[in-house]
């Protein structure tokens, strides 16, 4: 049984049928990527998994337990934690307060302290800027903070929505190095990316989403060789 199993999920925005029966699964310790063009439904899939959108049909199971009946904050305490698109840092809270908010579901102060140390270990820059207000960080630092904030909750599955969006190439490399590092630590990640090239390098498997449905799914290696993927998402001819 996979850790996270998404089965035949249909999500609507009003009358718009945004997800038309998406199924995918993520095994423990694996990085799975979801690639696709703008508006293909990638973010919608993550929002549905986090409970921000309610699927009309289908199920999302974590270790066999259906999550679709829970509210977003309950899903976080179940272990599915999202790094939202566009980072969504609390701009008026300090870096440290942002991280504390990430650990909101954890009540044991020692656990919070050790998570904080882990995040500071991953991103030493955040330790230096602890007292700074989130809104004053650079784009790259904000992405680090958003990732660190999600890690504070001890996620069993980390959902990452476009972590490289709007970042300079050198920062994109840093973010993907972090993802590799998290993978080495055993974190399970479902990664949504427009930068399909980078995503397929770190992931073990991938799904290609088109107009709200999975059109291709295979190992990352095979997808990289695939004719359609190369033309449509890797920009090769």
């Amino acid at each position, binding site marked *: 049984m996979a850790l996270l199993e998404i089965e035949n999920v249909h999500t609507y925005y009003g009358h718009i049928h945004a997800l038309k029966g998406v199924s995918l699964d993520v095994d423990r310790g694996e990085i799975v990527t979801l690639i696709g063009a703008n508006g293909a439904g990638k973010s919608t899939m993550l929002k549905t998994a*986090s*409970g*921000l959108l309610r699927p009309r049909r289908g199920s999302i199971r974590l270790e066999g337990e259906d999550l679709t009946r829970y*509210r*977003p*904050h309950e899903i*976080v*305490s179940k272990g599915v*934690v*999202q790094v*939202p698109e566009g980072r*969504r840092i*609390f*701009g*008026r*809270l300090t870096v440290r*307060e942002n991280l*504390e*908010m*990430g650990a*909101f*579901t954890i009540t044991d102060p020692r656990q919070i302290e050790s998570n904080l140390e882990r995040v500071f270990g991953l991103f030493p820059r955040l330790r230096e800027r602890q007292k700074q207000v989130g809104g004053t960080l650079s784009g790259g630092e904000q992405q680090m903070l958003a990732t660190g*904030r999600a890690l504070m*909750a001890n996620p069993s599955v980390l959902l990452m929505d476009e972590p490289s969006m709007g970042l300079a190439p050198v920062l994109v490399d840093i973010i993907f190095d972090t993802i590799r590092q998290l993978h080495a630590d055993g974190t399970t990640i479902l990664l949504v990316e427009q930068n399909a090239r980078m995503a397929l390098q770190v992931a073990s498997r991938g799904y290609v989403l088109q107009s709200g449905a999975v059109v291709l799914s295979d190992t990352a290696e095979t997808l990289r060789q695939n004719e359609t993927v190369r033309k449509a998402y890797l920009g090769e001819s």
Partner: protein
Amino acid sequence: MLKRWKKRITPTDVVMWLIGGAILVLIFWGSIATLATGTYTGHHWFDFIIFGLAQGSIYALIAMGYTMVYGILRMINFAHSEVFMCGPYTAYYVAAAFYSSGFLDQYPIVSLIMIFLVSMATSTLVAVLLERIAYRPLRTAPRLIPLITAIGASFFLQYTFRGFYGSGFQAYPVVQILEGEITFWGFRILKFQAVVIAAAAILMAALYSFVQRTRLGKAIRAVSEDKETSALMGIDIDRMIVTTFVIGGMSAGAAGVLYALMFKQVHFFMGFIPGIKAFTAAVLGGIGNIPGAMLGGIFLGLVESVGPSLFLDGLGIVAPYQLKDAIAFTMLVLVLIFRPTGILGERLTVKKA
């Protein structure tokens, strides 16, 4: 260069600046004339300032509820003035019972604490019910709808409490230990004013450190900034909104007792003017901003208390004190014209409404 200026300044701006300028000239002229005649001595001014501080700290406590609810829900809770009214009105019956049984004179401190607790509990209960029944079902509705609901809820509460307690004024019993004066370096302060200022200062400090330092306080700030992301952090949005109403209700209930101690009476309509003044204070300080509400409240109280004598007396206006409300609301209009974001307010464009 001149063309660019012409394009940017509209005739409306010019008129607004003229009005503002005229008011400033009037204030300046009035103040100089008043000071030149020397009708008031230093002691008078000192009394005005202390009264203004006491009045202002009550406004500040009420303003806290407006500003925090605005921060988290982006709505003006116009029923907050009734949250303020119902606490001291209910506590009046406790106070009256204590008074007639002699308990109030025997154990004044215990009695006062009980009166505060009853008032704060009532206000909190009403605030929480208001959120649950009137506002929560409308959370996703367009912004005008909860606003109209708030006004409706305000009337509902006013007349409900009139139904409970009648439409007359009730005189709050006199607490003996709060009567009389204390003297500081030759300046006399009425005891109850000193108590009002001290109590309000303690409450505001407690509230501010709650919001700044505790886990719940930080979560409330996070929710105020971005509800969706807060939910993704595992924060229960509804719980934080209820907590905000609890805090607002508690500070309004406490402010209500302080108000009753100062003016010695309660009435079902007593919330209206202080409520609107506190709303003015919240706007003055920058709505959504907690230190701003404190500052705005105290500033408004001071201007209202010092202003009539200082600005208007010298202009030959008889009984200028009658015009204190006019001064308060003129200030609101001026703030809305020249600095709509308030003293400490941030630019609204940054926020997602």
